[in-house]
């Protein structure tokens, strides 16, 4: 099969899977098999695409052209490949987890859940392979809309309120700011193609670059730069597999991915640096890193704490893009991967605790480690990777991000990164410490044991990856490297 059609298949397959899931809705086992088979095939497809890209294949495909000069156009470049690889591989892991979780938790409307999940993955793939800003925006919006029913899944008043915030902020920023930025770009340059070295450099007065760039950065609400971060904690009302894959990986990474794309292919890193467009924006990212960490420390609800941690970590990537040096871009791209594997492990563990012990608050976890040792072991691994300790993958991305701040001569920011790592230790490692070393309160010491085995399998896979990525970050590193070294 030619590479082009393989790329389309990566988008179409989850859609077909969604249709299959709806058709098999009455037979849960068959329905879950459809999900798993689709997820495995998608995983294989992205790996195959990766190897073709490594061999230097150039994969592009134009579908239709709704507006003159603005086709729906797909092209694989290193950053998109990296994102697709992460999302594609983790979908399978999450599916395994979701089966155990959804059944143990006796969630309703599971057919709708799996179908919308598959559609969300399809739009993630579309975002990753988008060859111009128009196509990217199209799938960006579809991703928002297809995840809305997942956030509102339980249908309770709280879920509806959360979903309203989710939709309101994401659509509000994308239509109000991002679309405006896209259209200004188009009316200036007459194109929205992603080109190496950017497209706006010759058309834009440097004085206005900062404004346009800010419209993009804040307009990409999925990157959750403060003050547009509120949707992410609000989305935590969703079932845990959704929080894990979509709100730690697909949706939020689609945001920072778009930020990187815009930085590298719309503006061009050289232009960002030379026009000092991001001089004041970096402080928004830095503030988000610190403030979100501080808020996370005060959250007692486990999933909300993880959500604020995600807000903080996302701004690492945004910061990487804003600094626009070679190392910082590599660090930002790598952090998409490293944070994905680590954070998904943490969410899996949070869900496992909810399913097995029915606990949602951090303060309830005392002594739980003795009943669920594996879950908390995996949690510790994920937490260490996020903090950036060796021998876990998270170290590499923090390393390159720190290098980036030094290259840019921003020692204050280096301090911010270090301080944030310390805060990470406090709010993340405190959780397993409490579980392992504190005494259980006497009120609820009935024995419930470990999480369902599918949840454990999923957690072990993702936490194993955190370790493997320390010793062998090569596949992702080479993609990040290609991103900054491709011929200008």
């Amino acid at each position, binding site marked *: 099969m030619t590479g082009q059609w393989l790329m389309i298949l990566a988008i179409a397959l989850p859609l077909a899977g969604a249709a299959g899931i709806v058709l098999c809705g009455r037979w849960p086992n068959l329905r879950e098999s459809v999900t798993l088979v689709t997820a495995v095939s998608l995983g294989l497809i992205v790996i195959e695409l990766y190897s073709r890209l490594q061999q230097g294949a150039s994969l592009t495909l134009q579908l239709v052209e*709704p507006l003159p000069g603005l086709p729906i156009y797909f092209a694989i470049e290193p950053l998109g490949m990296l994102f697709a690889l992460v999302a594609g591989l983790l979908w399978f892991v999450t599916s395994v987890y979701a089966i155990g979780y959804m059944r143990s938790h006796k969630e309703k409307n599971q057919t709708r859940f799996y179908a919308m999940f598959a559609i969300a993955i399809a739009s993630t793939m579309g975002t990753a392979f988008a060859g111009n800003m128009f196509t990217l925006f199209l799938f960006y919006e579809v991703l928002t809309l297809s995840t809305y029913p997942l956030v509102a899944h339980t*249908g309770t008043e709280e879920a509806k309120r959360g979903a309203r915030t989710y*939709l309101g902020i994401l659509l509000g920023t994308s239509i109000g700011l991002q679309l405006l930025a896209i259209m200004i770009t188009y009316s200036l340059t007459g194109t929205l193609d992603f080109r190496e070295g950017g497209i706006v450099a010759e058309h834009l007065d440097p004085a206005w670059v900062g404004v346009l760039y800010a419209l993009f950065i804040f307009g990409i609400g999925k990157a959750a730069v403060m003050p547009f971060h509120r949707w992410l904690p609000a989305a935590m009302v969703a079932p845990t597999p959704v929080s894990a894959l979509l709100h730690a990986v697909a949706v939020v990474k689609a945001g920072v991915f778009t930020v990187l794309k815009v930085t590298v292919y719309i503006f061009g890193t050289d232009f960002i640096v030379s026009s000092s467009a991001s001089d004041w924006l970096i402080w928004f990212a830095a503030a988000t890193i610190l403030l979100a960490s501080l808020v996370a420390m005060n959250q007692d609800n486990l999933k909300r704490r993880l959500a604020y941690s995600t807000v903080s970590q996302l701004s690492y990537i945004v910061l990487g893009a804003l600094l626009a040096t070679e190392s910082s871009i590599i660090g930002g791209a790598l952090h998409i991967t490293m944070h994905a594997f680590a954070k998904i492990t943490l969410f899996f563990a949070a869900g496992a605790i909810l399913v097995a012990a029915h606990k949602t608050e951090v303060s309830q976890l005392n002594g739980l480690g003795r009943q669920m040792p594996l879950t908390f072991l995996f949690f510790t691994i994920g937490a260490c990777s996020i903090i950036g300790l060796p021998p876990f993958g998270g170290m590499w991305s923090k390393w390159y991000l720190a290098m980036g701040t030094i290259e840019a001569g921003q020692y204050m920011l280096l301090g911010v990164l270090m301080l944030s790592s310390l805060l990470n230790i406090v709010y993340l490692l405190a959780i397993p410490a409490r579980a392992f070393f504190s005494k259980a309160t006497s009120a609820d010491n009935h024995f419930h044991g470990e999480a369902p085995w599918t949840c454990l399998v999923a957690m072990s896979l993702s936490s194993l990856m955190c370790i493997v990525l320390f010793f062998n970050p090569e596949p992702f590193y080479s993609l990040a490297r290609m991103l900054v070294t491709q011929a200008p």
Partner: protein
Amino acid sequence: MIETHTSLLLVVIPLLAAPVTAILPNGRLPWLLTLAVSWLCFVLAIWQFMQVMDGSVISYELGGWEPPWGIEYRIDIVNAFVALIVAGMAAVTLPYALLSVEQEIPKDRISLFYATLLLCLDGLLGIAMTGDVFNLFVFLEISSLSSYTLISMGRQRKALTASYQYLIMGTIGATFLLIGIGLIYSETGSLNMVDLNNRLPAVFEHRTVHTAFAFIVVGVGLKLAMFPLHLWLPNAYTYAPSAVTVFLAATATKVAVYVMLRMVFNVFSTGFAYVTPTDDMFLLLGVFGVVFASISAIGQKDAKRLLAYSSVAQIGYILLGIGFASALGLTAAVVHIFNHALMKAALFMAVGALVYRIGSSHITQIRGLGRQMPWTFGALVIAGLSLIGVPGTAGFISKWYLVLAAIEQQAWVIAIVILAGSLLAVIYIWKLVEALFFQPAIDDTKSVREAPLSLLVPTWILVLANIYFGLNTELTVNAATIAVQVLENIPQ
């Protein structure tokens, strides 16, 4: 031979069919005849459209009297495009009408209903065809009088008040238009549009011409529900029978917009409109229309009324396009005439399907129906997304051109208003979505069946058209681009 008569046939066939329908026995026969006529008109309209697609003009002299003395039907791409929308919407609405009308209209009035509907169609097509301003007024009255009747046939008694309100406002509008036409006739001695376009510049300085222009703009503004002259519209759309709401929402205001474009740009001229403060007025009213009507829509408790206010807001977008006074803005306006017809018809059809099942469109009555009528709900969501302007739908295309036009003139406030309008649309559409899907049904024990196929199929044809014209804009944007050249009098 037949080519030259196509345009005339489009007007003559519905006109002749109307009295025949009226004397047919009540039952399905009147519907069948109306359906046949509307489909025939659609085919003719497509054919006519293809004839002028390349920018050529069909001129037909009624009764063989040479213009400017006789009435001339002069079909360029603008006429053909509007006729295509009207005939196309009629062709989609009629299959939908069968069951909906049987339920809502008393049995003994069915043939009268269809006869009136045919007259309304005839009036609208006539407006689109004619090249004579007085003839245009006549057709406007035919369509208006028949729409008053159609609206009054709604099953609630409030339909009568709504119709009466529309009658008063509509008549004022028509009178203003007539006064305006009379004044320019007294100045130039001509009623032919092309002829007027040649003669009027000589008298542009005259105060009479300015007065005439003001009368015409206000009169037509009333018919197209230009903010703040829109007060008749929400009631009329809310209380009219479902099928009538669909048809009128998709066509009547669009045709009035066409009249506005024709009058302002071709009878008078681009230059005249921009020397007077007309363009600024359009921009101002457009902005206020978008903002106020969208906010009003959010507060509505009835789905049909909510969509009606949304229509007023959408007309605001079209006015903005006209007011920008640029090729890009006019393209946006013309494209939005087409796209808005598609999305609003689909939305009213979906709501009509709810009404068909439960007899009400009140937001508390439709709660929880989305789960029981998934296809209707799906149609409403997709058409709603198109209204919001999500990429991949027709609505996005018009918003795109409109915002580009605003950016081109560096009208940042207006660009932001347009995008904010989209966000307000998210709120009111989501109000419906949440009520339909996430609220508990009022009566859980009562199961509501999905709408019948004859309602669903037309709805989904329009929904798919919304997606198709969001991905393939060859037809709409090309037609709009050529239409703009005609409107701006650019020689081809």
